[in-house]
């Protein structure tokens, strides 16, 4: 919701600006109006989320976090489709993206897809993973797409999987390291934070994360927040970026 609602505009009607070092990208209108998703089918939505392609077949820019959404289940995509159909149609034309830097080069999306969009479909799950951990992995990696902001990206914008969730100092907002290496939070600290925005030291987050909590994690069930906590506490601890990066093994889990 956050990325598809302008601060003073109708909800879900687009226009929210995401500032990145690749330019400013505007969330499109998702309401069932002629400026939004009227004319789309459930299959169109599935294709957008799973494959990052529009109904006409062109590739989306990765400001739309389909590298995470690709892991959504068919059931959840179906539910999302049913929900979007209930929104009041809002007439508000999409604002074109204002790309800069490498994103203005021809083939930029194709290049990004090559390096940043290879693991598609269901998330891999270790055989010994418990139900809570697996649910948490799905919520963190697919639904809440935490790593899209909290992971550093390469020069072409691909998430650096070796430092997944280890923080990103680039716009839209500096996003801190949320691995156990930087946040030694217990499960209660996590669930309380995801419900209220309050950190264990009593500070309360503002900025982008405030909206993530207000519109997202505070509306989850307590069980789902506990699942996210389980997963987040299990990811490989990463120190600050200066730490011996080379010695770390591939993948966080």
């Amino acid at each position, binding site marked *: 919701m956050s990325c598809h609602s302008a601060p003073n505009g109708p909800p879900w009607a687009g226009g929210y600006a995401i500032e990145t070092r690749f330019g400013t990208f505007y969330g499109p209108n998702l309401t069932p109006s002629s400026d939004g998703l009227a004319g789309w089918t459930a299959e169109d939505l599935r294709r957008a989320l799973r494959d990052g392609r529009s109904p006409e077949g062109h590739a989306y820019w990765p400001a739309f976090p389909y590298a995470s959404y690709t892991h959504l289940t068919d059931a959840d995509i179906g539910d999302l489709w049913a929900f979007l159909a209930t929104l009041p149609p809002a007439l508000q034309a999409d604002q074109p993206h204002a790309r800069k830097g490498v994103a203005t080069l021809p083939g930029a999306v194709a290049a990004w897809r090559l390096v940043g969009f290879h693991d598609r479909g269901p998330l891999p799950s270790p055989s010994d993973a418990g139900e809570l951990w697996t649910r948490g992995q799905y919520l963190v990696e697919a639904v809440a797409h935490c790593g899209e902001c909290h992971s550093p990206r390469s020069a072409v914008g691909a998430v650096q999987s070796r430092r997944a969730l280890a923080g990103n100092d680039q716009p839209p907002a500096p*996003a*801190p390291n949320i691995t156990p290496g930087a946040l030694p939070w217990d499960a209660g600290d996590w669930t309380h934070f995801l419900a209220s*925005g309050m950190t264990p030291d009593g500070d309360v987050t*503002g*900025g982008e994360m405030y909206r993530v909590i207000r519109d997202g994690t505070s509306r989850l069930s307590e069980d789902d927040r506990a699942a996210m906590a389980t997963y987040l506490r299990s990811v490989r601890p990463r120190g600050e970026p200066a730490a011996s990066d080379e010695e770390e093994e591939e993948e966080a889990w």
Partner: protein
Amino acid sequence: MRLRWLVISAVCFTTTAWSADPAPSPDAPEKVVAYREKAMKAAANHLGLASMIAKGEIHRPSDMTLHAEALHDLGASFAALFPEGTGPDKVKSESKPDIWTQHDKFLAAAAAFETETQKLVDVAKTGDVAAYKAQTDKVGQACGSCHEPFRVEDEH
């Protein structure tokens, strides 16, 4: 006659108290910023302590009111800690200029914090830990709804 003067002075007093324009401060801007950052930190500490009790991590029912009242009393001065001339254009601060350009919105956010912390005081006095927890969440939301538009988020 006397009553009339009383009414007039009451009206004058109220008008002065209600005028929304932040007055310039006689204090050095750096000191104002240092003071308000410490005041915010103090509030955060009380909220953190209140949360530990609320979450049942520690059994200190007798401290519930203390933290609630501290939050409420600190909150009562928040708006006054942002006088004109203490924004990021004048001094190093995490405050956003919108505090002064959208001052009514800022005052409303500060007032919301007072309302929610007053409710926390009321709940604390009943000794109901579950209600106390629910209200600390509301207080947290009041913090966040002011930080979101008016504070620059630090990375750490």
